[in-house]
């Protein structure tokens, strides 16, 4: 019945239906009443019927207890034999299955003046789960619902995002999220993604050195790509887009580690997921069968006529379209034959190529169809299998709804999916508006993935992130290394994200994020705990070397405390310059402070040994430089951006980038006074400038740059509940109610008496319930 499709939520109710039986024996529904408690027709209901001119009929109720005198409506008893149809066709408490829905009932009289003369009318009831009809005005979302939708369809839920959905009904909210999806990223990807691909092939004659340098350059690229994707996930106005990109990445899996460091191809594969991920499954299937990263990952470039390689064929059937049990070994072999020759042209910038000479051009039999099939036919045939739609629906169900797809719904959704030519947006809309998505029993059923936890926390609490490189490293430590799924099945997710060590690490991670401290790869990975922290100075240092490493002299309060040779500096003579100093490897250098230094007032960092060699064109191909990103004393971190520097040779000028001999000065006492919250100002300055520099390095045209920079500039250190929760309605801004905007279930740990807002936010973010979505 169409009316059931508009279910907004499910609720246990009793439905009392008045059905009139006219002289022809036809049943007409006269009225419907929903009773939340006892399944008893109310006097009001019966009076309403009477007002609609129901006269002179006998009332029959299946439950003798419910027989009642209904006021103006005359009643009398009828026996079974008086009815033109058996009693069991009326509704009873035990016969919810024979609820008129399934019977051909005429609803024409519903709500209308009752004109027919009826021989009888029945009042019966059914109890159970019933749809609250959309005939009532559609409700606007509540806070919990808004949070639920945002958390499932995106990453976390910032108060502004929640507030934007509150005035909307469920369909409006879902339409908004789907309407906002994009096909291009907001943050321009790293510059190298637009370059022709480097020479991955034909390295036999290269020296080992050259091969190593090549490999290391590719690894630097994938690090950039990971950082870029995290930036995109944080900055995008459409997190649903990125969630779908991740979904397809985990469905059509390929791993950077297994494809010979083909960083460019991993990027290209993601472009496919972004451009087609919300289009049609057919477009994705066609695209992925021609995708060089996939062809390489599953060895199809070795799949040749007479020497088949079945890897892609097998995973295509088992993991991408049908699932185990819906194909046979013969099908795999035939599909492999059809995919033969689909390879990569190493000489044409690694583009897809269908090599005719390597294609098995015999007749293949795939799922009953015969022909000289190739990959295009394979895709077509797979889309013709009814199971494919169900498989994809089930996977999306598990991503968005629950671990146990409801069979009937899957079939219904799959039918719609197939009929719409495998369009993904309408399917997504159906899923997100479905009863099961909103059902109470499907809340708090999913454990956040590491990416979910990190990106979601940053987005929810609008946190500053100045070293975005750190986030993929932390995600990896928690078990999710993006672009490197563990195997072709992808990340299983769910409870596999949680073990005692990872759980504690999750708590630590959220805590550090909430402290508005930057998580940087170096300090999370090299967490040095050398004695009392206030006796140490830490600096995040890197450099470029040219026939010798850069040296760093450190003086505190005028007293020289260290001379460091940055031996791990990037060797520019052998490996070339790195255009973006943010990409140069940096490490935490620890410098013990002598006892004479009780309070750090001024730090000076001197770079004394600048050196370079220029080529004939004047370009310094070999160059020695020193880079310092931040200095940490005790628990406070100071971005070098906030310092001053003599001889600033960088373009644009940036303290901390010592390209020529010079001295960087950090007036710690002054910086302390300027900052309000834990070095927030310095961090914001660092964030803004790192962002600008980063953007410039990524060569974003100004037009696209604006949104991202503004979005990132808006991220402030978490100052107070009022600031964070301002967009939320008043009733949600109390300590007791705050959790509804943050977790699907109340936190395990209750508020302490007199708890302030800041503490409340931290408590909730640190709660076990926060790990769920």
């Amino acid at each position: 019945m169409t009316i059931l499709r508009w279910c907004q939520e499910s609720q246990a109710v009793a439905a009392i239906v008045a059905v009139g039986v006219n002289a022809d024996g036809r049943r007409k529904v006269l009225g419907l009443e929903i009773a939340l408690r006892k399944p008893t027709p109310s006097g009001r209901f019966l009076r309403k019927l009477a007002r609609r001119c129901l006269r002179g009929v006998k009332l029959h109720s299946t439950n003798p207890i419910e027989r009642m005198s209904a006021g103006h409506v005359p009643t009398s008893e009828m026996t079974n034999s008086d009815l033109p149809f058996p009693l069991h066709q009326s509704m009873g408490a035990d016969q919810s299955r024979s609820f008129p829905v399934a019977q051909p009932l005429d609803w024409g009289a519903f709500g209308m003046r009752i004109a027919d003369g009826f021989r009888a009318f029945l009042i019966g009831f059914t109890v159970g789960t019933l749809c609250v009809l959309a005939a009532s005005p559609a409700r606007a979302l509540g806070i919990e619902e808004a949070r639920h939708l945002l958390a499932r369809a995106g990453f976390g839920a910032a108060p502004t995002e929640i507030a934007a959905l509150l005035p909307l009904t469920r369909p409006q909210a879902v339409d908004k999220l789907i309407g906002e999806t994009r096909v291009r990223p907001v943050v321009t990807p790293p510059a190298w993604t637009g370059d022709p691909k480097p020479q991955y092939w034909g390295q036999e004659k290269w020296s080992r050195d050259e091969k190593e340098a090549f490999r290391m350059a590719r690894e630097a690229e994938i690090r950039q790509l990971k950082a870029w994707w995290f930036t995109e996930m944080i900055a995008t106005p459409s997190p649903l887009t990125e969630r779908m990109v991740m979904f397809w990445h985990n469905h059509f899996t390929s791993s950077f580690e297994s494809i010979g460091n083909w960083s460019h191809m991993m990027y290209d594969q993601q472009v496919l997921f972004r451009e087609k991920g919300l289009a049609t499954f057919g477009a994705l299937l066609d695209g992925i069968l021609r995708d060089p990263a996939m062809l390489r990952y599953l060895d199809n470039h070795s799949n040749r006529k007479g020497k088949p390689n079945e890897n892609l064929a097998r995973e295509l059937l088992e993991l991408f379209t049908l699932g185990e049990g819906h194909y046979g070994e013969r099908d795999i072999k035939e599909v492999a034959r059809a995919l033969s020759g689909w390879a990569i042209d190493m000489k044409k910038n690694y583009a897809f190529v269908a090599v005719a000479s390597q294609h098995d051009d015999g007749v293949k039999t795939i799922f009953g169809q015969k022909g000289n099939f190739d990959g295009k036919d394979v895709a077509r045939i797979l889309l013709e299998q009814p199971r494919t739609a169900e498989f994809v629906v089930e996977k999306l169900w598990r991503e968005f709804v629950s671990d146990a797809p409801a069979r009937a719904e899957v079939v219904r959704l799959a039918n719609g999916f197939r009929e719409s030519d495998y369009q993904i947006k309408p399917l997504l809309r159906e899923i997100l508006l479905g009863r099961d998505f909103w059902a109470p029993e499907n809340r708090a059923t999913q454990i956040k993935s590491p990416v979910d936890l990190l990106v979601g926390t940053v987005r929810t609490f609008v946190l500053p992130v100045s070293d975005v490189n750190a986030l993929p490293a932390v995600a990896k430590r928690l078990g999710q290394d993006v672009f490197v799924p563990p195997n072709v099945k992808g990340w299983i997710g769910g409870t596999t994200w949680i073990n005692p060590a990872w759980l504690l690490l999750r708590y630590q991670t959220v805590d550090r994020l909430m402290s508005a401290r930057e998580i940087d790869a170096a300090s999370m990975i090299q967490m040095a705990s050398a004695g009392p922290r206030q006796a140490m100075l830490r600096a995040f240092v890197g450099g470029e070397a040219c026939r010798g490493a850069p040296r760093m002299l450190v003086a505190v309060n005028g007293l020289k405390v260290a001379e460091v040779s940055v031996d791990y500096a990037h060797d520019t003579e052998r490996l070339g310059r790195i255009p973006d100093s943010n990409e140069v490897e940096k490490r935490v250098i620890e410098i013990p402070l002598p006892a004479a230094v009780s309070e750090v007032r001024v730090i000076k960092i001197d770079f004394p040994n600048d050196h370079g060699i220029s080529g004939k064109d004047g370009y310094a191909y070999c160059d020695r430089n020193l880079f310092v990103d931040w200095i940490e004393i005790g628990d406070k971190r100071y971005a070098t951006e906030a310092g001053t520097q003599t001889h600033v040779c960088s373009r644009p000028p940036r303290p901390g980038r010592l390209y020529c001999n010079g001295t960087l000065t950090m007036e710690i006492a002054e910086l302390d006074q300027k900052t309000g919250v834990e070095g927030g100002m310095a961090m914001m300055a660092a964030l803004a400038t790192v962002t600008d520099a980063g953007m410039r390095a990524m060569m974003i045209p100004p037009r696209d740059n604006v949104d991202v920079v503004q979005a990132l500039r808006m991220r402030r250190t978490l100052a107070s509940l009022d600031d964070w929760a301002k967009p939320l309605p008043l009733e949600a801004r109390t300590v007791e109610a705050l959790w509804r905007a943050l977790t699907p279930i109340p936190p395990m740990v209750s508020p302490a008496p007199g708890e302030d807002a800041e503490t409340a936010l931290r408590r909730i973010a640190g709660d076990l319930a926060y790990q769920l979505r």
Partner: protein
Amino acid sequence: MFPSSRRRFLKTVAGLPLFALMPQGCATAPGEVAATPVRAAGFRGATGPTRGRTVIMIEMFGGNDGLNTVVPYKNPKYAALRPTIAIPVKNVIRIGDELGFHPALERAMTIWERGEMTTVLGVGYANPNRSHFRSQEIWETAANSEEVLTEGWLGRAMAEHPVFRDRRADADAVVIGSGSLGAVLGRGARVVTMNDPRQYVRDAQRLADISAATTTPALAHLLKTQGDALATATKLKSKIESRGRFEGNFPGHALGRNLANAVALLDAGVDAPIIKVTSGGFDTHGDQLGRHDNLLKQFADSVVALRDALKQIGRWDDTLVFAYSEFGRRVAENNSRGTDHGTAGVAFFLGGGVAGGLQGKQPSLDDLMDGDLKFNLDFRRLYATILANWWGQPENYLAALGHAPLPVFRAAVA
């Protein structure tokens, strides 16, 4: 009196009451140490039940250059292929006619001479992978080069073999520092990571003792895991706090500190079969000499301090130190006075229960595979050795796969 060349004298042998050095059948020249100082089988030391034994794993991450760690100093090819980074013959600590240790291992020679250090040569696996992460994964999961397994070898061993289940340790594995968890993750593995014990106790405070009416399987799993983590933390906390800070004499670098914390845990009576630390930085692509020297010095200083500390708390005999790396490095040096990722490498076993000497065979410099050393000992034999002979589980899943243990331990131990 001592010659200027670096020859090691068996100075202390005659004086020590506890053991006698028995050269393996070859006459040794005066003043030269026997090639394989192996302790007599008759040694009776405190072995203790296998149940209480611990393995401290030291992962030398980055690819430790085995060829400069155990140097074939006599072979002219060595110096020829490494013109700037070969260890000069006069600096090598000779342990026989052919081989010698890198001079940075000087301080650890006391352990070697006591026969408490076994060095295994030629360790690797077929179809070597030269990616750090993939090779580390292969080592961690005891996989073949082309297979992808998801469980750590210890994670699996601990789930499958009774010797661990029956032990009821406080925690299955403690990973100190930020090293990879791969080797110890497995079904239900109770793994603890920490930087230092007191920090861990502080962090564990946030594990609230909660129970809730479970509404979803996901929440149930989280609650159970939290409960496990809390139970472990509670056990550890009371032990750690009751003991006070352990006063050892460890070097101040990261490896030293992490091992100091390992001993602190043992001193506090924490029972964990595995403690793992990582020493990074072995990826010496450029300017290898200074960096590698530094790293091996750190290693030597650390294991010496470790031995002293474990002796002090009476745990040297039932603790095994196992040091390994995910691959060795190429034979020929590169253009940056360093080496690139290679294949076969060396591994170390140290401890009171170890028999000492060399195991395995030094890979030949005349028979290289595309410029790389050929391995002759599958790394899984090292694991099988530990499972079978250290933990007394001769029927273990690696043995079933055909990996035979090595005679690393004294007879009384196994």
